[in-house]
């Protein structure tokens, strides 16, 4: 096939319209979400004292952190799906959840505490946190990568890592309603570690899946 023939063929296919990436990502995440929720309700469930927990600002802050992570990672993912884009202009969005976390830690430091710092940091659910967040993230990560395949990222591994952040943010949002450790120190330690694991898996998978 010579190049003129190829050009004529591509022209014949001009009527084809791919889904916009935002829509493709959303549909893929919606398809994956039931799997993650099934894992959650089968293995964990919402903590029994959730109604009283909601009056604790540090319980609510967990959701602010995880949702900020999910939202900023979605925005960065969509940006990175363009071939000429890089992290340089948009990467700082990912600092928003970190900023909320730092503010929460300083807030907690200024309040009188009954339990010592290390006890709050280590908490009771570190193992559950480190397994549940990656496990619930995995279906979402596969979905996100599937949706993002519509894109053309310059650096597939970086785009995959951000897809990992996105899925970890969503999974951690659900997990936070189960976890009885509300200290921002716990979140900063274990949620961050779990998120880092998912981001690494995302980078490895993205390096293959997101090449175009």
């Amino acid at each position, binding site marked *: 096939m010579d190049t003129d023939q190829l050009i004529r063929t591509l022209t014949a296919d*001009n009527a084809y319209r791919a889904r916009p990436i935002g829509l493709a990502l959303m549909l893929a995440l919606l398809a994956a979400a039931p799997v993650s929720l099934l894992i959650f309700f089968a293995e964990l469930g919402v903590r029994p004292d959730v109604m009283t927990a909601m009056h604790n600002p540090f319980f609510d802050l967990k959701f602010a952190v995880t949702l900020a992570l999910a939202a900023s990672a979605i925005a960065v993912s969509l940006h990175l799906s363009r*071939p000429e884009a890089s992290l340089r202009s948009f990467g700082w969005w990912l600092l928003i959840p970190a900023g909320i976390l730092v503010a929460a830690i300083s807030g907690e430091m200024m309040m009188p505490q009954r339990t010592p710092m290390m006890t709050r940091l280590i908490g009771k659910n570190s193992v559950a946190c480190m397994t549940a967040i990656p496990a619930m993230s995995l279906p979402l990560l596969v979905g996100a990568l599937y949706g993002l395949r519509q894109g*053309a990222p310059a650096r597939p591994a970086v785009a995959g890592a951000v897809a990992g952040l996105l899925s970890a943010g969503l999974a951690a949002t659900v997990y936070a309603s189960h976890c009885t450790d509300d200290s921002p120190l716990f979140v900063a330690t274990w949620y961050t570690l779990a998120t880092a694991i998912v981001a690494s898996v995302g980078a490895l998978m993205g390096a293959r899946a997101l090449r*175009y």
Partner: protein
Amino acid sequence: MREREDEWTDLMRSAISGDDAAYHRLLKAITPVLRAAARRGLARAGQPVDQSEDIVQDILLAVHLKRQTWDTSAPFAPWLFAIARNKLIDALRRRGRRIFVNIDDFAETLPGETPEPTASPGEVTAQLQGLPARQRDVLQSIAVDSTSIKDTAAKFAMTEGAVRVALHRGLASLTAKLRDR
């Protein structure tokens, strides 16, 4: 140079809103620029330049399949050159070379510089044979025999819609095969 790139942007906008003639003109217009840049990249990597046409076709396929990632309010050339650069790096890496690809390789091509293809490209043709029968037949008919979608549909007793689907899937699987070879 500016003017040329503005023209590309206008053509791509028309193409996306359904103007096939504009799309054809755009692809014809960018091809010599891509060809010159691919040749320069190959030469710099110490590779025979007669493989440039395979790279050009690789880039054209990616441009086609990824055009939804172009933001219609942005200029077209930076988007095009980013895709072209990525594909050129891929091609050189596959040939096992250390790569020095400069974005200016693309931007600097002069409008007057219109090299003709030197060797007939073999990679797309070779991968075409590995496609599912239906996709291969439709691609063969439209690309090589220059049959219209309508006549191709009549030839294979398919609906025009089915031909369009087979055509697009064929192009997508062709690209996947080229990428994963």
